Protein backbone atom coordinates (compact mmCIF):
# COMPACT_ATOMS: atom_id res chain seq x y z
CA UNK A 1 0.00 0.00 0.00
CA UNK A 2 3.07 2.21 0.34
CA UNK A 3 2.85 3.48 -3.20
CA UNK A 4 -0.84 4.41 -3.01
CA UNK A 5 -1.51 8.05 -2.06
CA UNK A 6 -3.51 8.34 1.18
CA UNK A 7 -6.41 10.18 -0.46
CA UNK A 8 -7.40 6.95 -2.27
CA UNK A 9 -7.47 4.86 0.89
CA UNK A 10 -10.25 6.84 2.59
CA UNK A 11 -13.22 5.46 0.67
CA UNK A 12 -12.23 1.75 0.95
CA UNK A 13 -13.04 1.24 -2.69
CA UNK A 14 -12.83 -2.11 -4.47
CA UNK A 15 -10.27 -0.90 -7.01
CA UNK A 16 -7.73 -0.38 -4.24
CA UNK A 17 -8.23 -3.98 -3.07
CA UNK A 18 -7.87 -5.24 -6.65
CA UNK A 19 -4.80 -3.24 -7.53
CA UNK A 20 -2.90 -2.68 -4.29
CA UNK A 21 -0.56 -5.66 -4.76
CA UNK A 22 0.77 -4.16 -8.02
CA UNK A 23 1.02 -0.54 -6.88
CA UNK A 24 4.28 1.22 -7.66
CA UNK A 25 5.35 -1.06 -10.50
CA UNK A 26 7.48 1.02 -12.86
CA UNK A 27 8.49 -1.55 -15.44
CA UNK A 28 7.40 -1.03 -19.03
CA UNK A 29 4.30 -3.13 -19.42
CA UNK A 30 0.68 -3.23 -20.48
CA UNK A 31 -0.79 -2.56 -17.05
CA UNK A 32 0.87 -0.15 -14.61
CA UNK A 33 -0.71 0.65 -11.24
CA UNK A 34 0.19 3.89 -9.44
CA UNK A 35 3.46 4.22 -11.38
CA UNK A 36 5.87 6.82 -10.06
CA UNK A 37 7.96 7.30 -13.18
CA UNK A 38 5.40 8.79 -15.55
CA UNK A 39 4.18 12.30 -16.18
CA UNK A 40 2.44 13.96 -19.09
CA UNK A 41 2.05 17.30 -20.74
CA UNK A 42 -0.46 19.35 -18.74
CA UNK A 43 -0.32 17.33 -15.53
CA UNK A 44 -1.36 19.40 -12.52
CA UNK A 45 0.58 19.60 -9.29
CA UNK A 46 -0.59 16.89 -6.90
CA UNK A 47 -2.37 14.97 -9.66
CA UNK A 48 -1.76 11.24 -9.17
CA UNK A 49 -1.50 8.78 -12.01
CA UNK A 50 -3.62 5.75 -11.08
CA UNK A 51 -3.36 3.53 -14.15
CA UNK A 52 -1.16 3.39 -17.22
CA UNK A 53 -2.56 0.94 -19.72
CA UNK A 54 -1.25 -0.19 -23.08
CA UNK A 55 -2.58 -2.76 -25.51
CA UNK A 56 -2.15 -6.43 -24.63
CA UNK A 57 0.82 -8.06 -26.47
CA UNK A 58 -1.59 -10.60 -27.99
CA UNK A 59 -3.25 -7.80 -29.98
CA UNK A 60 -0.13 -7.75 -32.16
CA UNK A 61 -0.21 -11.41 -33.20
CA UNK A 62 -0.84 -10.43 -36.89
CA UNK A 63 2.31 -8.26 -36.74
CA UNK A 64 4.31 -11.18 -35.31
CA UNK A 65 3.23 -13.28 -38.31
CA UNK A 66 4.17 -10.44 -40.68
CA UNK A 67 7.66 -10.32 -39.13
CA UNK A 68 8.01 -14.09 -39.60
CA UNK A 69 6.86 -13.82 -43.22
CA UNK A 70 9.35 -11.00 -43.88
CA UNK A 71 12.15 -13.07 -42.33
CA UNK A 72 11.38 -16.05 -44.57
CA UNK A 73 10.45 -13.99 -47.67
CA UNK A 74 14.03 -13.83 -49.06
CA UNK A 75 13.99 -17.62 -49.53
CA UNK A 76 10.80 -17.37 -51.56
CA UNK A 77 11.98 -14.31 -53.47
CA UNK A 78 15.29 -15.97 -54.36
CA UNK A 79 13.54 -19.04 -55.73
CA UNK A 80 11.34 -16.79 -57.89
CA UNK A 81 14.17 -14.56 -59.12
CA UNK A 82 16.51 -17.48 -59.81
CA UNK A 83 14.83 -18.01 -63.18
CA UNK A 84 14.97 -14.37 -64.26
CA UNK A 85 17.84 -13.71 -66.60
CA UNK A 86 20.27 -10.93 -65.68
CA UNK A 87 19.77 -11.13 -61.92
CA UNK A 88 22.69 -12.52 -59.95
CA UNK A 89 23.82 -13.22 -56.39
CA UNK A 90 24.46 -9.55 -55.55
CA UNK A 91 20.86 -8.68 -56.46
CA UNK A 92 19.57 -11.59 -54.39
CA UNK A 93 21.70 -10.47 -51.44
CA UNK A 94 20.39 -6.91 -51.80
CA UNK A 95 16.77 -8.08 -51.80
CA UNK A 96 17.48 -10.43 -48.88
CA UNK A 97 19.00 -7.53 -46.90
CA UNK A 98 15.96 -5.39 -47.69
CA UNK A 99 13.54 -8.00 -46.37
CA UNK A 100 15.64 -8.46 -43.24
CA UNK A 101 15.59 -4.68 -42.71
CA UNK A 102 11.81 -4.63 -43.21
CA UNK A 103 11.41 -7.41 -40.61
CA UNK A 104 13.53 -5.52 -38.06
CA UNK A 105 11.72 -2.29 -38.90
CA UNK A 106 8.28 -3.88 -38.47
CA UNK A 107 9.35 -5.21 -35.05
CA UNK A 108 10.66 -1.81 -33.88
CA UNK A 109 7.69 0.03 -35.39
CA UNK A 110 5.21 -2.30 -33.65
CA UNK A 111 7.03 -1.93 -30.35
CA UNK A 112 7.16 1.90 -30.53
CA UNK A 113 3.48 2.11 -31.49
CA UNK A 114 2.62 -0.16 -28.56
CA UNK A 115 4.74 1.92 -26.19
CA UNK A 116 3.37 5.33 -27.20
CA UNK A 117 -0.29 4.30 -27.63
CA UNK A 118 -1.03 4.70 -23.97
CA UNK A 119 -4.13 5.23 -21.86
CA UNK A 120 -3.65 7.07 -18.60
CA UNK A 121 -6.14 7.32 -15.75
CA UNK A 122 -5.43 9.91 -13.08
CA UNK A 123 -7.47 11.23 -10.17
CA UNK A 124 -8.43 14.20 -12.36
CA UNK A 125 -8.80 12.93 -15.91
CA UNK A 126 -8.47 10.18 -18.48
CA UNK A 127 -5.99 10.45 -21.33
CA UNK A 128 -6.00 8.49 -24.56
CA UNK A 129 -2.92 8.69 -26.80
CA UNK A 130 -3.38 6.99 -30.17
CA UNK A 131 -0.31 6.43 -32.31
CA UNK A 132 -1.34 4.27 -35.23
CA UNK A 133 0.70 5.73 -38.06
CA UNK A 134 3.80 7.89 -38.43
CA UNK A 135 1.96 10.88 -39.88
CA UNK A 136 -0.69 11.13 -37.18
CA UNK A 137 -1.19 10.81 -33.46
CA UNK A 138 -4.06 11.87 -31.24
CA UNK A 139 -3.91 13.05 -27.63
CA UNK A 140 -7.39 13.16 -26.11
CA UNK A 141 -8.32 13.87 -22.54
CA UNK A 142 -11.49 14.28 -20.51
CA UNK A 143 -12.07 15.30 -16.93
CA UNK A 144 -13.28 12.49 -14.67
CA UNK A 145 -16.49 14.33 -13.83
CA UNK A 146 -17.38 14.38 -17.56
CA UNK A 147 -17.63 10.58 -17.59
CA UNK A 148 -21.22 9.44 -18.03
CA UNK A 149 -20.94 5.72 -18.61
CA UNK A 150 -18.23 3.05 -18.71
CA UNK A 151 -18.55 -0.35 -20.37
CA UNK A 152 -16.23 -3.05 -21.57
CA UNK A 153 -16.41 -5.83 -24.12
CA UNK A 154 -14.05 -8.61 -25.13
CA UNK A 155 -13.58 -8.60 -28.90
CA UNK A 156 -12.97 -11.88 -30.67
CA UNK A 157 -11.51 -15.28 -29.91
CA UNK A 158 -8.02 -14.03 -29.00
CA UNK A 159 -9.42 -11.65 -26.39
CA UNK A 160 -11.20 -14.59 -24.71
CA UNK A 161 -7.99 -16.63 -24.68
CA UNK A 162 -5.70 -13.86 -23.44
CA UNK A 163 -8.24 -11.91 -21.35
CA UNK A 164 -8.17 -8.51 -22.96
CA UNK A 165 -10.89 -6.28 -24.35
CA UNK A 166 -12.07 -2.80 -25.20
CA UNK A 167 -13.20 -0.29 -22.59
CA UNK A 168 -15.71 2.30 -23.80
CA UNK A 169 -16.05 5.54 -21.86
CA UNK A 170 -18.96 7.81 -22.69
CA UNK A 171 -18.22 11.43 -21.86
CA UNK A 172 -20.05 14.71 -22.14
CA UNK A 173 -17.09 16.39 -23.85
CA UNK A 174 -16.26 17.16 -27.46
CA UNK A 175 -15.01 13.62 -27.99
CA UNK A 176 -18.14 11.75 -26.87
CA UNK A 177 -16.55 8.32 -26.52
CA UNK A 178 -13.12 7.26 -25.37
CA UNK A 179 -12.00 3.82 -26.33
CA UNK A 180 -9.21 1.91 -24.64
CA UNK A 181 -8.64 -0.73 -27.30
CA UNK A 182 -7.27 -4.22 -26.65
CA UNK A 183 -6.32 -3.51 -23.05
CA UNK A 184 -5.69 -6.19 -20.42
CA UNK A 185 -8.06 -6.61 -17.46
CA UNK A 186 -10.89 -4.43 -18.80
CA UNK A 187 -13.04 -5.28 -15.75
CA UNK A 188 -10.48 -3.76 -13.38
CA UNK A 189 -10.21 -0.63 -15.55
CA UNK A 190 -13.98 -0.19 -15.55
CA UNK A 191 -14.15 -0.71 -11.78
CA UNK A 192 -11.30 1.75 -11.20
CA UNK A 193 -12.90 4.44 -13.37
CA UNK A 194 -16.29 4.13 -11.68
CA UNK A 195 -14.73 4.14 -8.19
CA UNK A 196 -12.61 7.19 -9.03
CA UNK A 197 -15.69 8.94 -10.41
CA UNK A 198 -17.53 8.23 -7.17
CA UNK A 199 -14.63 9.51 -5.06
CA UNK A 200 -14.47 12.61 -7.27
CA UNK A 201 -18.18 13.29 -6.93
CA UNK A 202 -17.90 12.97 -3.15
CA UNK A 203 -14.97 15.40 -3.18
CA UNK A 204 -12.57 12.88 -1.64
CA UNK A 205 -9.99 13.26 -4.41
Amino acid at each position, binding site marked *: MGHIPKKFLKGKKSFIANLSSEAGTNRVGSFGVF*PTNISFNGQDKGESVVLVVRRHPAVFIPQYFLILVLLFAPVLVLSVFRDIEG*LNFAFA*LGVGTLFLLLAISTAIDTFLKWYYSVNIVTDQRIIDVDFNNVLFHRFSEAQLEKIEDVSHAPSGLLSSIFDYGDVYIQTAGTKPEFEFTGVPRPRDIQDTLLDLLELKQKGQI
Partner: protein
Amino acid sequence: MDFLDGINTINWPIAGTEGVFKLLFLVIIFGYVIYSFLLTLRVRILNDTVKTSSNKTMLLLSYIHLLLAVVGGLFSVILILVG
Protein backbone atom coordinates in the same frame (compact mmCIF):
# COMPACT_ATOMS: atom_id res chain seq x y z
CA MET B 1 36.54 0.43 -86.28
CA ASP B 2 34.70 -2.14 -84.19
CA PHE B 3 35.56 -0.27 -81.03
CA LEU B 4 33.26 2.57 -82.16
CA ASP B 5 30.16 0.36 -82.42
CA GLY B 6 28.93 0.92 -78.88
CA ILE B 7 30.07 4.54 -78.51
CA ASN B 8 26.53 6.01 -78.53
CA THR B 9 25.07 3.28 -76.33
CA ILE B 10 24.70 4.02 -72.64
CA ASN B 11 24.67 0.91 -70.45
CA TRP B 12 22.04 1.85 -67.88
CA PRO B 13 22.09 -0.16 -64.65
CA ILE B 14 18.26 -0.24 -64.75
CA ALA B 15 16.94 -1.55 -68.07
CA GLY B 16 14.92 -4.54 -69.31
CA THR B 17 12.89 -7.04 -67.26
CA GLU B 18 15.39 -7.19 -64.41
CA GLY B 19 15.40 -3.38 -64.42
CA VAL B 20 11.70 -3.33 -63.50
CA PHE B 21 12.44 -5.44 -60.42
CA LYS B 22 15.43 -3.30 -59.53
CA LEU B 23 13.35 -0.13 -59.81
CA LEU B 24 10.59 -1.68 -57.69
CA PHE B 25 13.00 -2.56 -54.88
CA LEU B 26 14.71 0.85 -55.08
CA VAL B 27 11.33 2.54 -54.62
CA ILE B 28 10.60 0.26 -51.62
CA ILE B 29 13.98 1.15 -50.06
CA PHE B 30 13.36 4.86 -50.60
CA GLY B 31 9.94 4.59 -48.95
CA TYR B 32 11.41 2.58 -46.10
CA VAL B 33 14.05 5.21 -45.32
CA ILE B 34 11.46 8.02 -45.45
CA TYR B 35 9.17 6.01 -43.15
CA SER B 36 12.00 5.49 -40.63
CA PHE B 37 12.75 9.21 -40.67
CA LEU B 38 9.08 10.08 -40.05
CA LEU B 39 8.91 7.52 -37.23
CA THR B 40 11.89 9.14 -35.52
CA LEU B 41 10.27 12.59 -35.79
CA ARG B 42 7.01 11.28 -34.34
CA VAL B 43 8.82 9.56 -31.45
CA ARG B 44 10.55 12.88 -30.65
CA ILE B 45 7.17 14.61 -30.43
CA LEU B 46 5.58 11.84 -28.35
CA ASN B 47 8.53 11.88 -25.95
CA ASP B 48 7.48 15.39 -24.93
CA THR B 49 3.82 14.40 -24.62
CA VAL B 50 4.11 11.51 -22.18
CA LYS B 51 7.30 11.39 -20.13
CA THR B 52 8.54 8.17 -18.56
CA SER B 53 11.95 6.95 -17.43
CA SER B 54 12.16 4.74 -20.55
CA ASN B 55 11.66 7.58 -23.03
CA LYS B 56 15.40 8.06 -23.63
CA THR B 57 15.72 4.38 -24.49
CA MET B 58 12.84 4.65 -26.94
CA LEU B 59 14.35 7.72 -28.60
CA LEU B 60 17.69 5.90 -28.84
CA LEU B 61 15.89 2.91 -30.36
CA SER B 62 14.29 5.13 -32.99
CA TYR B 63 17.68 6.70 -33.85
CA ILE B 64 19.26 3.23 -34.16
CA HIS B 65 16.33 2.27 -36.38
CA LEU B 66 16.91 5.30 -38.61
CA LEU B 67 20.65 4.60 -38.81
CA LEU B 68 19.96 0.97 -39.67
CA ALA B 69 17.49 2.05 -42.36
CA VAL B 70 19.94 4.50 -43.95
CA VAL B 71 23.02 2.26 -43.81
CA GLY B 72 21.12 -0.94 -44.65
CA GLY B 73 19.14 0.82 -47.36
CA LEU B 74 22.33 2.16 -48.95
CA PHE B 75 23.90 -1.30 -48.80
CA SER B 76 20.82 -2.82 -50.47
CA VAL B 77 20.76 -0.12 -53.18
CA ILE B 78 24.39 -0.80 -54.07
CA LEU B 79 23.85 -4.57 -54.18
CA ILE B 80 20.67 -4.27 -56.22
CA LEU B 81 22.28 -1.89 -58.75
CA VAL B 82 25.40 -4.03 -59.05
CA GLY B 83 23.37 -7.25 -59.31
